[in-house]
């Protein structure tokens, strides 16, 4: 539990963070809440030589609505996401997911950006970001660029982020009829299977659906076969039950560990898809 030696620098602005990352030449790591990075450093699984602290950058944290889109600063803690009145009102599934991350200590320190950039295959946010079809706004030496959540994760702990880039914020159109359902791994509190469902319902019919899955496979994915089965169908529990059955089919890189076999994970995908769909539909009534 003793990390290797490292330098510590505190970034004063986003540009400063980018400049410091560039100067570190690939040996730098950003730190905000530290709840993904520091455990790895303590185990010497990650040995950055420079830590650049972005937790104190002004306006790096915060949740607001701009032009009918929700914008969450990457430095926003899970606790602030979980308890945001704006999110609770406009897009409660995102708050739901934040509320079941880890434990209170993790939620008080860990940040949205940290979780997304770390890309643990069992993290909760990625499923919800897929379901709300979020855009990730990234600042680098060459300026800004935007990556869709579905394109961001490239593999286990691997994302579309260059060594001199900072994930600055996330934006998405709020979806009220959305929910997140999760089977906890008891030790880590990560998801053995986590499913986020976001529905667009018009005139009692499901106009479109986006279902994001985390925990089960090597990286978060959309359950396109479930989405297809929901499209155009009545917004009902029967529809949810029928469509959820397709969850888990066609995924060939299921995780398997002491906590859950691949077979069990596959079986749990429809269960939690159904629960997420029922949760989303319940919000329709509300």
């Amino acid at each position, binding site marked *: 539990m003793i990390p290797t030696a490292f330098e510590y620098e505190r970034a004063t602005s986003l540009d400063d963070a980018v400049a410091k990352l560039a100067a570190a030449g690939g040996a730098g790591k950003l730190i905000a809440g530290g709840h993904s990075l520091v*455990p790895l450093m*303590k*185990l010497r699984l990650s040995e950055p030589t420079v830590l650049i602290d972005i937790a104190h950058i002004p306006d790096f944290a915060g949740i607001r609505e701009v032009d009918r889109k929700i914008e969450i600063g990457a430095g926003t803690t899970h606790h602030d996401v979980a308890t945001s009145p704006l999110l609770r009102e406009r897009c409660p599934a995102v708050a739901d997911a934040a509320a079941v991350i880890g434990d209170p200590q993790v939620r008080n320190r860990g940040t949205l950006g940290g979780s997304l950039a770390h890309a643990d295959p069992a993290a909760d946010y990625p499923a919800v970001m897929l379901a709300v079809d979020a855009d990730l706004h990234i600042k680098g030496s060459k300026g800004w660029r935007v990556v869709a959540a579905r394109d961001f994760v490239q593999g286990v702990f691997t994302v579309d982020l260059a060594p001199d880039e900072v994930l600055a914020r996330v934006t998405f159109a709020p979806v009220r009829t959305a929910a997140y359902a999760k089977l906890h791994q008891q*030790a880590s509190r990560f998801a053995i299977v986590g499913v986020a469902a976001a529905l667009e319902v018009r005139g009692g019919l499901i106009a479109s659906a986006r279902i994001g899955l985390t925990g089960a496979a090597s990286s978060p994915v959309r359950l396109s076969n479930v989405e297809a089965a929901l499209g155009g169908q009545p917004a009902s529990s029967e529809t949810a039950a029928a469509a959820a059955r397709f969850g888990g089919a066609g995924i060939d890189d299921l995780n398997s560990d002491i906590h859950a076999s691949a077979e*069990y994970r596959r079986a*749990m995908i429809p269960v939690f898809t159904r629960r997420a769909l029922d949760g989303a539909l319940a919000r329709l009534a509300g």
Partner: protein
Amino acid sequence: MASPVLPKLVGQRVKRREDPRLIQGRGTYVDDVKITGMQHLAFKRSDIAHGRIRSIDTSAAEAVDGVEAVFTGAQIAEFLGPMPIGTPFPSPDHRAVASDVVRYVGEPVAVVVARDRYVARDAADAVTIEYDPLPVVVDPEQALTGQPAVLHADFPNNAAVGPLPSGTGASPKAVDDTAIDQAFAEADVVVSQRMVNHRLAPTSIEPRGVVAHYEPGKDAMTIWSSTQNPHILRTFIAALTGLGQDQVRAIAPEVGGGFGSKINIYGEEYVAAALSKRLGLPLKWVEDRSEAFLCTIHGRDILAYVDLAARRDGTVLGLKLRLVADIGAYNMLLTAAIPTLTMTMASNVYAIPAIRATLTEVFTNKTPTDAYRGAGRPEAIYFVERAMDMLARELGVDPAEVRRRNFIPSDRFPFKTQTGAVYDSGDYAKALDRALEKAGWEGLKAERDAARAEGRLVGLGLSMYVEVCGVGPSSGLPTGGWEHSQVTVERDGRVSATTGASPHGQGNETTFAQMLADQLGIPMEHVRIHHGDTGVVKQGIGTFGSRSQAVGGAALHLAGGKVKKKMAKFAAALLEAHEGDLVFENGTISVKGSPSSAKSFADVAGYAYRPVKLPEGLEPGLSEEAFFEPSNNTYPFGCHIAMLEVDRDTGEPRLLKMVAVDDAGHLINPLIVEGQIHGGLAQGIGQALIEEVAYSDDGQPLTGSFMDYAIPRASDFPRFELESTVTPTPVNPLGAKGVGEAGTIGSTPCIVSAAVDALSGFGVRHVDMMLRPERLWRVINGGQA
């Protein structure tokens, strides 16, 4: 039997006086000890489970700036002998630092002495070791075939102990199976099941740590350690460093939990002491959490083949228990003795007329096991109670009733079981009745059935337990089975008392102060309890086996009585009264029936230290000590009831209700007792539901951090519903039995039984712990558990 301790503070829910400093972070732990010139140790540990060390290169480590020295196992062996054990069983050579063969992941192979912890760790990483890998065995039954690996040449087939028979007709010379065979021949019903009581990690909040400070000028050693028993530590440290016990002072400062794991004296402690003496430097080593999972002893890991024979009316005729204990790679201090307690307690609360228990302990390529909260008794109770539950199901009888039919009657104590335990006192029917009433057993059954009618998977579990605590007399412990205390009334009338018990969460600073305050008639605030320092506490054994109150408290009571008696003589001289007529109350000593005669407690104390004139036959001063050795162990008991629901879709178990009725004899402080039971329940339920140490087939630990090893959270539980019955023990003057381990012993089987009950519709008779959702999901879906 009435307790001789006056009920004033004793019996009250007094808040723990330890808590404010601990909660506010003002405690002093080993890691807080800092000495000028102190250097730090880091251990290079094996990352393979079994292999022969071909070469060690320490040159890169020695070159790290700030490194004082690096020692390999071979170098350490030149001045540090093999690790001692505290049991009478044969043991292989075990070195604090391996020099030849490594046998589990985490075994030390080199040690670095450096300026600070960071440098030490960097240098340890820079030690390069080449191994010739050896075959690995992690399954104990596989290990008993001697294939594919034999860990220790002198132990063919890896059998560390046994097969060791116990029970009816067993003697060291011959085993007579007539009675047990007859019991099974006469039985109408036999239930048989292989069960596993799996491996756990103790996970105390504070990991282990040691500071060893040998002062060459004094030729004396002070050693701070996060230990449960500083006097035992002193004994072994002195022996291994070639010092006399008069030359070693052992200090257990605040100890952040132990759960049995800090009874053992570990290699790191011996190495720190030996190197401090050799180098003439103060040395510190503090375990990190990764090391704690690998290198602190594990608990449990016993599997059993259980056969229970009974008549159709539920009368148990015989029990066979064939135990295989996976003790890991080496014998530690008490390792070999722990599973023997599983045999000793095989009769549980039942008058079983014939028992055959057989124990084999096995070496495997895993971390060694030793005492963990309950230590051998939870395993016994788990095996027997699961079997009793299976019997009840087989016979279609209420699980409470099948148990009641077999209780040892309350008028048959002391009761000697077929495995040789002599139970001191008990009233098992009373505990069962209280638990059934408190839980509303019949109502719960109706509730369960109604839930099932709705398609929910709800089950009930009930368990009875008796355990062995307050270990004594000396025949039962190689250290001696007594405890020591000294009570001093200071010149100002305040009271300082020492205890050889070494509390690390048990709250004895509070309970012992309650006792002395009552005994001497003074405010509790005037009493201070000193412990955990052999330089202050003259003698002691330590805190383990739920003995601090029953044995340590009794010694304190005796010492307090002695000093009171002497003080009465001084008071009698002052008051010109007979010492037998004096009353100690409210901070005064007065002549009975004449309160106006009162002298303050402080005045009498002052007189005792400047006795002008000295009463005839008295020495000045007020400081008395006592050793107390009980005539027998104590045997607390109880009944636990759980209601649990399994999610039909996921297999997730959820505990709905937990009732625990425990009988620990007289209670000094019911609040602290409840705290002990809460913690015990959490760990017992934790074992059933979420805690398990797992290894891969090649001996790699799969639960090396809290990311994979779960421990319970408060939010995992319903509100515990507790109650006590009181059946005092006759073996000590307090009538107290001990309660530290009760919760872990009674709870585990009733949780598993509740899960089996919940899944009974799927034809399952038994499910091994831990109850992973997937395991239960497979039962629901028709697969093997």
